[in-house]
């Protein structure tokens, strides 16, 4: 670094984007009748329009404190609430946005100035604003069961915090406040030790005592993570109860009766009774607690208890109910397992023991990725279904309920029917009083539904074991009728038949005698031909003209499949003019035409290509075939990619879908993409015809039928159906995948399900649901890959419309934590982690209208130890090629060794080179020295080692791997303990600048050179001891000029810092300066990476982008 004469301007950091857990949610109903969802995302308040999902405005509320709660002034019945402002809190920070500011915000305008951030004496769990005697007031409850009052100005600005009041100060995990009347607040606190304290606070200070303890509930066996006080619930005219819901570490949800005479008559109910907890209480888990005698009865006030969720339950909230208890009270719980569960609480207030009830489980909806629903809001408007929002650790917001169906064309009705055979027979008799065929007798146990097909959106058809065919028109619900069939057709279809929908209003049927029939909605059934053998399947040829449709007919044991063609101009079907020759024992299960090729898929997963032209007759022989060696399961669908004549998709019962590209002249095809969506067996797929086509899959997962949008990774429907291997038919408008009709058999009943829209809607997309451990950007800043503790890799590209990113692919193959991630070019990604997993991914973009990345795991490292229990901590590719297609790469294993291999880009195989063993300490980072084949490794003992090899000439054996032994040339102590982050640059030949961040809070810059003997020499090591307040877990050299380098560091202390190193005075040593130091919203940070010129991405709990530039931000 030669000395610089002109000083460089200071480089500063500016936050450009943050995706963080949603830690607070609240609904806000404006006077305009629009509803808004207020979300706390790190320090930001974000306001979304519920109807349009649009982000209306965002405001940075706190300086360096995430928002944990938002309270919008509310009336009891959920009516518009503009009179009050917003109370926002997080940690000890609290702010009130006055009504005028809120009005501006929902109009999309930033308020002229941000109110002052106040600090409460302790952590805040809940807060409310209310009006008392014409004055606006507020209160907070803290983690030590204290009430802090808020004093507001007439225009709704927070002026000061009042004194602290508490009956006892156990440490809480949850608390909730409700206004009882002008004077009194009801407080519920859930303690760390499993108790719930319910008390009243009177803010009329003229009273002798400001508080009174009402109940102390014990019964939970673990910490109370959520408490919610219900509104007053009218159980009978004039009779009201108030309930408390609680959820706990013990996986139970409990409902408590907290109404009592005192509460009913609060006006004069403030006298102090014997239950006061003047002195703090002994606390402890379960049996430990010495509940006071007078509190023992409190636990009999437990109304209902139930167990739910696979792990901890964070929140429980009350939903809608009908006054007078004509129906149940809905209760919602939200858990660590990312599910939202709905419960129905039925109450009995007639018994002598007071209010008793039961909780019945209704639904479980998986809403988020990874772990944890951190925030939830429920809004109950009279006479409407509850509006429910959940916010996850994944930064996603999911919303449901309260939405009126738009009623636009293509929408379906919502129903869920279960009909026995006799039910359907009864309906047929009702709908056709004068039957044209002999009515089937009722009560025959052998009668069964056989095959289903949709003739159109509003017409469904089923074949039956007696050989009769029923059809239903759907007007609100299905109306069943029978199809007129000649007696000989009934006899032919009896006991065995096959039926498929091939085009609008058209099905093709096949029988065991080899007859093929055509049935059109408005025409009598027609015999198309006989194929001398049992018709095994009818496979509509996907991708051909919908008017002149074609289908592939397969016959049991035949050596060929027959093409059935329909000519719309003559209304003539023809069969057998063209046949496809089949390999031995080949049972086709799916067919499609892609460009000028016909693709067949088989029962054991073989995909076969035939070259085809319109005028061809006779038998076509296959051009080529291929099968994934890992699968033996049936191909269930083949679909051409929209707008492509070369690319197609297959779905398979092995749970994967794959994409292939056909070679020139249909000579074969190659796999481009292979993905396992969260389904056990995929049964079919289609693309929407929307402007940006989306891929819609359906299949089975355990006992569920799953309907899934693979483009948005959203489960659109999940329905218990009893499991795979059943007859079913499905249809959805291609323009609206959220609507769905599904018909299937379950325990000999016909089940018919129809949905108008998805129950759950993603208001805002999220990312990883666990901590990001690695961020890597491809060579030309094209893609960004992130890997997280949840073992998932996501690939992103910058959003074309603004800051933010679009997730292009989700890679789920790792079975344990991913340690490191790196691109080679723009199309190869390598990931490594626990269980000795190292995968090489190929990433390409197919030329089709479906915008997706084609991703496949191309190769994996397979030199496993016996137990496969080491972790691959890091790896790197060498800088040069060996021959034309081989590169060397090195890996670092948790047993203190590093190993080198060559990897053949054509062979996709690894060959072992050599190994170097260190002291026993675990390596944390590994990198080839820029410009040479030496390897730098950082270790948990704070050292870096440079491993080198003597010049090596391959022997007579044919090998491409460098077998020369590895030895340490330079060992350098840098940190006191583990090196957590590392980067190296070479400003010029023979000069290396290494920067490291340690567990010891230090930043170290080491300046290395090469001495005259060609050995490494240390020019200097420079340490900033307390560079951060905690471990420096991410570090990147972001600027590497001739005369200075700049380093970005991130740490668990949630600061992002930018450091500059330049030559010291008179060229001696290095001068370090801290250029910028900012709060980062990313906790438990794992990595930092340059994602384009002047931008870094920080990954941890969420992701964040910072601009860095050597000028002052406006």
């Amino acid at each position: 670094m030669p000395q610089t004469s002109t000083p460089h301007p200071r480089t500063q950091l500016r936050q450009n984007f943050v995706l963080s857990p949603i830690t607070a949610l609240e609904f806000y109903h404006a006077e305009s009748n629009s509803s808004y969802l207020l979300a706390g995302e790190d320090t930001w308040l974000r306001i979304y329009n519920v109807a349009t999902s649009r982000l209306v405005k965002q405001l940075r509320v706190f300086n360096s404190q995430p928002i944990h709660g938002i309270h919008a002034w509310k009336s009891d019945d959920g009516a518009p609430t503009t009179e009050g402002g917003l109370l926002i809190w997080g940690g000890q920070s609290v702010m009130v946005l006055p009504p005028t500011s809120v009005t501006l915000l929902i109009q999309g305008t930033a308020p002229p100035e941000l109110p002052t951030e106040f600090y409460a004496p302790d952590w805040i769990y809940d807060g409310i604003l209310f009006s008392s005697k014409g004055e606006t007031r507020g209160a907070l409850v803290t983690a030590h069961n204290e009430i802090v009052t808020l004093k507001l100005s007439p225009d709704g600005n927070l002026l000061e915090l009042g004194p602290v009041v508490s009956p006892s100060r156990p440490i809480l995990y949850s608390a909730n406040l409700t206004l009882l009347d002008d004077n009194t607040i009801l407080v519920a606190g859930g303690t760390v030790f499993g108790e719930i304290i319910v008390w009243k606070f009177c803010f009329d200070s003229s009273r002798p005592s400001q508080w009174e303890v009402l109940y102390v509930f014990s019964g939970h066996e673990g910490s109370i993570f959520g408490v919610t006080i219900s509104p007053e619930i009218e159980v009978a005219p004039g009779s009201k109860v108030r309930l408390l819901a609680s959820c706990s570490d013990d996986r139970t949800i409990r409902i408590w009766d907290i109404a009592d005479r005192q509460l009913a008559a609060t006006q004069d109910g403030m006298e102090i009774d014997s239950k006061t907890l003047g002195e703090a209480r002994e606390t402890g888990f379960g049996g430990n607690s010495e509940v006071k005698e007078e509190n023992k009865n409190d636990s009999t006030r437990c109304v209902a208890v139930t167990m739910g969720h696979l792990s901890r339950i964070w929140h429980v909230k009350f939903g809608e109910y009908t006054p007078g208890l004509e129906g149940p009270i809905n209760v919602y719980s939200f858990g660590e397992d990312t599910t939202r569960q709905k419960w129905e609480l039925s109450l009995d207030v007639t018994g002598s023991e007071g209010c008793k009830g039961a909780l019945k489980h209704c639904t479980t909806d998986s809403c988020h990725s990874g772990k944890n629903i951190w925030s939830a809001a429920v809004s109950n408007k009279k006479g409407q279904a509850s509006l429910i929002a959940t916010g996850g650790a994944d930064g996603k917001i999911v919303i449901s309920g309260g939405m009126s169906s738009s009623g636009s064309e293509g929408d379906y009705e919502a129903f869920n029917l279960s009909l026995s055979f006799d039910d359907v027979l009864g309906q047929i008799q009702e709908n056709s009083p004068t039957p044209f065929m002999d009515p089937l007798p009722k009560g025959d146990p052998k009668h069964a539904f056989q095959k289903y097909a949709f003739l159109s959106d509003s017409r469904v058809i089923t074949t039956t074991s007696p050989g009769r065919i029923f059809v239903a028109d759907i007007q609100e619900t299905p109306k069943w009728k029978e199809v007129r069939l000649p007696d000989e057709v009934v006899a032919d279809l009896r006991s065995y038949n096959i039926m498929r929908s091939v085009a609008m209003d058209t099905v093709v049927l096949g029988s065991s005698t080899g007859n093929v029939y055509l049935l059109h909605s408005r025409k009598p059934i027609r015999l198309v031909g006989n194929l001398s053998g049992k018709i095994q399947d009818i496979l509509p040829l996907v991708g051909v003209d919908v008017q002149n449709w074609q289908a592939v007919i397969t016959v049991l044991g035949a050596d060929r499949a027959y093409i059935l063609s329909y000519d719309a101009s003559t209304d003539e079907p023809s069969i057998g003019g063209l046949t496809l020759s089949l390999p031995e024992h080949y049972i086709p299960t799916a067919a499609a035409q892609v460009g000028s090729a016909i693709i067949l898929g088989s029962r054991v997963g073989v995909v076969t290509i035939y070259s085809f032209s319109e005028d061809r007759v006779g038998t076509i022989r296959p051009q080529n075939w291929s099968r994934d060696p890992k699968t033996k399961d049936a191909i269930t669908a083949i679909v051409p990619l929209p707008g492509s004549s070369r690319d197609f998709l297959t779905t398979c019962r092995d749970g994967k879908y794959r994409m292939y590209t056909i070679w020139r002249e249909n000579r074969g095809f190659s796999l481009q993409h292979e993905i396992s969506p969260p389904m056990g067996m995929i049964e079919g797929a289609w693309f929407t015809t929307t402007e940006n086509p989306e891929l819609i899959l359906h299949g089975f997962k355990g006992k569920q039928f799953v309907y899934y949008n693979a483009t948005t990774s959203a489960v659109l429907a999940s329905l218990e159906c009893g499991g795979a291997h059943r007859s079913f038919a499905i249809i959805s408008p291609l323009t609206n995948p959220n609507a769905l009709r599904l018909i299937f058999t379950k325990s000999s009943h016909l089940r018919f399900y129809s949905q108008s829209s998805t129950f759950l809607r993603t208001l805002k997309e999220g990312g990883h649901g666990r901590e990001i451990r690695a961020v890597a950007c491809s060579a030309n800043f094209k893609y960004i890959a992130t890997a997280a503790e949840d073992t998932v890799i996501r690939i992103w590209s910058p959003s074309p419309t603004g800051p933010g990113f679009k997730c292009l692919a989700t890679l789920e193959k790792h079975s344990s934590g991913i340690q490191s991630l790196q691109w080679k070019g723009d199309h190869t990604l390598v990931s490594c982690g626990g269980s000795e997993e190292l995968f090489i991914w190929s990433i390409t973009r197919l030329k089709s209208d479906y915008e997706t990345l084609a991703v496949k795991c191309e190769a994996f490292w397979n030199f496993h130890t016996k137990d496969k229990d080491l972790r691959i901590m890091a790896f790197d590719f060498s800088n040069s090629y060996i021959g034309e297609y081989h590169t060397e790469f090195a890996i670092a294993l948790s047993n203190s060794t590093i190993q080198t291999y060559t990897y053949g880009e054509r062979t996709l195989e690894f060959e072992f080179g050599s190994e170097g063993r260190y002291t026993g300490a675990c390596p944390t980072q590994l990198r080839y020295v820029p410009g040479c084949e030496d390897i730098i490794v950082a270790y948990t003992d704070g050292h870096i080692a440079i491993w080198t090899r003597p010049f090596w000439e391959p022997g007579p054996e044919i090998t491409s791997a460098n077998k020369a032994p590895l030895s340490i040339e330079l060992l350098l102590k840098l940190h006191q303990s583990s090196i957590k982050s590392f980067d190296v640059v070479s400003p010029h030949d023979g000069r290396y600048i290494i920067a490291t961040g340690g567990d010891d809070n230090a930043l170290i810059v080491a300046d290395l050179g090469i001495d005259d003997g060609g050995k490494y020499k240390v020019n200097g090591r420079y340490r900033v001891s307390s560079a951060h307040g905690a471990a420096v877990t991410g570090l990147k050299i972001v600027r590497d000029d001739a005369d200075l380098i700049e380093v970005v560091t991130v740490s668990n202390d949630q600061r992002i810092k930018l450091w500059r190193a330049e030559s010291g005075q008179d060229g001696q040593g290095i001068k370090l300066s801290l250029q910028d130091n900012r709060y980062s919203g990313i906790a438990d940070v794992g990595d930092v990476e340059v994602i384009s010129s002047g931008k870094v991405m920080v990954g941890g709990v969420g992701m964040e982008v910072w601009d860095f530039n050597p000028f002052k931000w406006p």
Partner: protein
Amino acid sequence: MGKSSKDKRDAYYRLAKEQGWRARSAFKLLQLDEEFNLFENVTRVVDLCAAPGSWSQVLSRVLIKNEKFGRCAWEDREAKFRQRMLNAIPSESTDSQQQEERQDFEMTNSQDESSNRSDVKIVSIDLQPISPLPGVITLRADITHPATVPLLLKALDPSYDPEASANQQAQHPVDLVISDGAPDVTGLHDLDIYVQSQLLFAALNLALCVLKPGGKFVAKIFRGRNVDLLYAQLKVFFEKVYVAKPRSSRASSVEAFIVCINFQPPEGFKASLEEPLGVGSRLSELQQQQQDSICQSGPSKAGDDGITEVIPEDLSGSDNKYRWVAPFVACGDLSAFDSDASYKLAAGHISLPPVQPPTAPPYKRAIELRRQNGGAYGKPVVSK
């Protein structure tokens, strides 16, 4: 993960079982002691949040039974050998190293039976019961509860009369207060850091009541956001504050230990659990008075390793008032087993059962019920 797989992944887990410790965390205290001589001239100790009792076990074996644990307790001999070979240990220190090693050898786990000490007082407190340990008085109590102070003082001095004593200050204070308490983390980092800091303050509040001037305080800390505020607050009461990371604590964990040396209560300060620190404004007022005394003391072990210490020019303009980063000290020397590395087990290795089974989690009943109802995915049902 199988048992022997865990033995490989976690050397200290295996060593703890082999050496009879109730939990691997025993090594954390031993390694802290090695660095800071925590037990030197110490006869009266209070162990907070002690269950399952591995730290009390260390106290019992070191202070009562007079056992000595040197480096050999956790030394990876092969690592030491390889370090020599790879020259990881600077040659100039080899002599002293060898000397130390000889000493180590003599010191390792030697027990002087004759000198079982009777003047030693160890009191352990936890909410959970702790299995008895020789010479250790165990109390089941909530350390945040004001009544715990008289309880503790009585345990330390049977003659203590809570009625007669006007304040909660101990008459015969203790030399060392230690706490290895940690909450079950929720995953909401903010909240977990807060709850951990409250546990730390609970321990500190109690320590302030019973610690003698010049005494020491050691507690677990999560190194996360605003930990520098916490360091600065501890500095109000102690001359020296370090943040220490034993080699037996995983580098991947946010856990570290705050080691506070030479208790110097501010003038006029009276400790009380009725008015605890950690919430409210009392501590920040104390801090304002003390502001001058918190000066950035240099790192303890730096300077002798050939690395140039740099004080960077701070151009960021950020406000660091009330923030201070305690010097970091790694404990347990480099030949200690690495808690992050995987180790090969000797041929014929038999995986031992843990010395004490883990305490039952609050969701134990949920797991049992789920099992009864058809495995992990069966619908759990509970009867009232």
